[in-house]
């Protein structure tokens, strides 16, 4: 940051005291963000009495008693599996259906192209929660209320506009020469799409996938309204039930919170760059 002007004097480089103060501010902020999470994890290894008496200290032992209780005595594993099923199915459907549509919009010129693109874009900002009553009635009449398929369809509909927006934007940037030469060689349109264009679109698919996977994995509202059967409930929904059932056993509660946060945190640690660009995508041009 310290660009030098011709006479060699550094331009407005921050002095050491200032740098130190900024670092202190950043470190304080990171502690504020991470410390509560560390406390949750540590408390998950404590007994309830231990949490009450020594909330800030390390647990007496790191025996995962509370985790075992949760795994064996609650439906936690089932909730986890349900969240996985719903998220993976929704994101897969969004990517398959969304890529097909985005491909048509990005690579072919036809009448109505612009109009259809705007149609999908209009779905971007719509708060679908506000349409929960018609959705509820509609899914009930289709026999899809209280099913995972119902959830998957709603999530797919909610995710398609952003996926199409991201994928169309990316597919438009690919050079047209590639498919022209394949076309001259007599390749079918399907072949061109599948073997030439789509492999190139993989980075955009990752972004669109994460952009949708995180909110779907974390969603609480739609399961709350749509799923009543306990064995079909997703993780955030199951967590609220579990928080009520064990509300006096804080050790178990914190272990449950740890367990609920663990899967997505691990993936985030491995792919933090993709997560950040995936979730902030579309908001910044």
């Amino acid at each position, binding site marked *: *940051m310290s*660009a030098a*002007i011709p006479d060699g004097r550094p*331009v*407005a480089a921050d002095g050491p005291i200032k740098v130190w103060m*900024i*670092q202190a*501010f*950043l470190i304080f*902020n*990171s502690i504020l*963000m*991470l410390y*509560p*999470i560390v*406390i949750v994890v540590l408390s998950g290894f404590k007994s309830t009495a231990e*949490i009450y008496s020594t*909330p*800030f200290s390390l647990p007496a032992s790191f025996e995962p008693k509370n985790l075992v209780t949760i795994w064996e005595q609650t439906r936690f594993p089932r909730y986890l599996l349900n969240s996985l099923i719903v998220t993976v199915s929704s994101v897969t459907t969004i990517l398959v*259906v*969304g890529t*097909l*549509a985005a491909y*048509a919009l990005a690579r072919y010129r*036809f009448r109505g192209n612009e109009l259809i693109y705007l149609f*999908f874009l209009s779905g971007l*900002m*719509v*708060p*679908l*929660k*506000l*349409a*929960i*009553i018609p*959705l509820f009635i*509609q899914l009930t009449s289709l026999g899809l209320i209280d099913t995972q398929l119902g959830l998957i369809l709603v999530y797919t*509909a909610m995710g398609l*506009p952003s996926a199409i927006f991201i994928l169309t934007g990316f597919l438009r940037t690919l050079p047209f020469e590639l498919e022209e030469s394949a076309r001259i060689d007599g390749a079918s*349109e*399907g072949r061109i799409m599948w073997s030439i264009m789509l492999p190139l679109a993989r980075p955009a698919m990752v972004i669109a996938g994460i952009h949708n996977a995180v909110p779907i994995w*974390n969603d*609480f509202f739609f399961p709350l309204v749509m799923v009543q059967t306990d064995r079909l409930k997703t993780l*955030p*929904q199951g*967590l*609220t039930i579990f*928080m009520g059932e064990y509300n006096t056993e804080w050790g178990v*509660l*914190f272990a449950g*919170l740890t367990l609920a946060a663990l899967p997505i*945190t691990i993936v*985030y640690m491995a792919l*933090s760059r993709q*997560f*950040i660009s995936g*979730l*902030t995508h579309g908001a*910044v*041009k």
Partner: protein
Amino acid sequence: MLQNDLGRKLWIAALLAPALVIVLLFVIVPIASAFLYAFYSWRGLARADFIGLENFRLVLFGEPFGTWTFNALRNNLIVFTSLMVVQNGTAFLIAFVLLKSLPGHRFHQVAIFLPVILSSVIVGAMWKLFLNPFFGLVNQGLIAVGLQSWAQPWLGQPQTALGSIIFVNAWHWVGFPALLFLAGMQRISKDVIDAARLDGAGDMALMRHVIWPLVAPATTVVVILTFIGSMNWFEMPFVMAGIDGTPAGATDVLGLYFYRTAFGSATGGLQDFGRASALAVLMFLVIAIVSVFWTRALRRRELPE
């Protein structure tokens, strides 16, 4: 050739059809239906008579519904203004210092974004335990440092309940606007910043006269997203304060009120799809109108590229 052209059309139609059908069935039709439903009276899940604007009248001016509506709306606006100051103000500051790319800035980015990827249910539930009046970390910590008198039932009294949940929401989301601002600041040409530095601009002057105006596109997005988020606020108060906006409606917001009206609650009485639909339509209109006009007004601040 004709057959070829037809084949091309069919191919394009086949690519677009699945997405069009799904969005039409599960986004467009429900939204349109919500508008229609608001003009009818309802008996449970069954639509009864067309009653014109009666549901809207009840929701806005009928008693006690009108009082509830405006109490909730007032809280939504408090949430929005507080988040603009606390969450987005902090985010801007953090983005500005992250822009300096000091050692460790990557780590700080990952740390501040960690809560963003967690479910509101997890974040709300953990902070509800932390804010517990007797055994919660917050009060225990205050007592430990000798501030006994500050310890209080944060979520149990009307003066602090909403503020506490707003704080938790800011903790949860601050990384999002921070990294949006950072991305916006990184788009500012280095030449512009260097020129300002050469003119002797310090950090404050740089921030006010160069970065603030040039980061306007990111600001527009942050303001609009915060507004939409605040008007739709539901999960955090639901997890932390419950469906009734306890204590005494201090944490009631339109999202909770809408949910109670639509699906009933233990204390809030019977469900009424008519009034709930009217509420949804009003919320939808407020969000849409304010977002569109505000985006326009804010875009005027943005310099042409």
